[in-house]
């Protein structure tokens, strides 16, 4: 096996032995003929296994910016978070210490786990709800990406496989050139941002230190529990009692909660302010309760409608009926008169 790197030391030794008077020239010489031929052999062996020059591994599609960086992976995390998580509450956190974060997360976990709902789904929800600090600038880009970039409209390109055959591939992932162009168009003002878009409403919130509480499903009970821990407002979302959760009333937790400000939310792709969040959290019996209300409303409306529609027919029937009875009476009256006359 020849050496992979040109071994200048041995070459130098060899040439120095042949021409000892010119060591500097020997240094400049690339290698001895024996070594180069060996290297060539090595190259011919590797050519048989080589991939096409423009080969793109399927697990590592091309990206517009370096894909391995922390920023890029964070962007992917945020876009997937925004696409899959219906409830995101945004908080401003003003210099919480690590201890305080731990205390808040502990109380939040306990508060959400205590929500009593039936089924396994609630246990799953409680374990997946989390409070995380966001990188605002990247979250901003992720919001733009989710709202203004449509991956289904990207045209496929051709790329070679490992065997050299060219196939059609679509690079429409979040770090692709197409995604980058779409976001750039929004940032540079080439694409107009409508005032009603969620991005336009949420982007002023993404300033300064922002943390997000995420819940993987719209569950008003869990949301109410989280609100009563993170942003208690007495009549509807009271803070847990001192007896029930003594940890909540510790000075560390209290000082942490004073520094957390609920500034807004994104619930089912719509922007909500604090009042809106409270409204969602205040929906009784969750979504099923809302559905029951809707069904009741529709039913009562239907009943009203049928009685109204029936009413016209009924009155017509009544008039006709009364008219008929009158006519019958007249006929009967005539008949009795005739009978009287006969008699």
């Amino acid at each position, binding site marked *: 096996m020849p050496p992979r790197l040109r071994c200048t030391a041995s070459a130098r030794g060899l040439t120095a032995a042949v021409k000892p008077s010119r060591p500097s020239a020997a240094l400049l010489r690339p290698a001895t003929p024996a070594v180069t031929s060996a290297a060539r052999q090595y190259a011919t062996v590797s050519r048989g296994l080589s991939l096409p020059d423009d080969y793109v591994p399927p697990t590592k599609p091309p990206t517009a910016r370096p894909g391995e960086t922390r920023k890029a992976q964070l962007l992917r995390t945020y876009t997937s978070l925004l696409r899959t998580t219906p409830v995101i509450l945004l908080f401003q956190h003003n*210099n919480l210490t690590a201890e305080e974060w731990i205390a808040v997360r502990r109380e939040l976990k306990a508060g959400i786990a205590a929500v009593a709902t039936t089924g396994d789904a609630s246990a799953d929800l409680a374990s997946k709800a989390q409070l995380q600090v966001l990188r605002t600038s990247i979250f901003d880009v992720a919001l733009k990406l989710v709202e203004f970039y449509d991956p289904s409209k990207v045209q496929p390109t051709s790329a070679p496989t490992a065997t050299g055959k060219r196939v059609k591939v679509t690079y429409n992932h979040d770090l692709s050139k197409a995604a980058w162009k779409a976001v750039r168009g929004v940032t540079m003002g080439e694409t107009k941002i409508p005032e009603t878009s969620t991005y336009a409403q949420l982007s*002023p*919130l993404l300033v*300064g230190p922002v943390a997000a509480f995420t819940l993987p499903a719209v569950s008003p009970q869990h949301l109410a529990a989280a609100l009563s821990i993170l942003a208690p407002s007495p009549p509807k979302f009271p803070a847990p009692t001192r007896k029930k959760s003594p940890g909540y009333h510790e000075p560390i937790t209290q*000082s942490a909660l004073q520094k957390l*400000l*609920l500034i*807004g939310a994104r619930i089912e792709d719509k922007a909500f*302010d604090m*009042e809106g969040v409270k409204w969602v959290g205040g929906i009784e019996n969750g979504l099923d309760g809302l559905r029951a209300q809707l069904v009741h409303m529709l039913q009562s409306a239907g009943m009203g409608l049928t009685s109204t529609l029936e009413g016209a027919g009924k009155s017509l029937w009544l008039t006709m009926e009364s008219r008929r009875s009158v006519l019958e009476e007249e006929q009967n009256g005539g008949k009795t008169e005739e009978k009287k006359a006969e008699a």
Partner: protein
Amino acid sequence: MITRFITEVQTAFNPFSPRAKSARLFLSFLPPNARSSGMSITTRLLPRASDAPSKLYVKFRDGKELNIDADNMGIKSIIEEVDRHSRILQKADDLAAA
């Protein structure tokens, strides 16, 4: 920012307005132990539809009160404004200590 001489901070802003930026950033400049070291901080969040200007009120140890127009000032100029008075207090403090 020198926060040692601030005793009271009151803010009110609508987070959905881009003009609330400097008031929010001012809050994030206060140190983690601000409340425990005697500073009283009150924040009022305005509803989303409100057009009221954001409010920033700062009171110092010597009783000096500052009403800062947080709507039209950047965070840098707000800090400069607050520090201008804090430095005077700091100088007086240093002279008294020496």
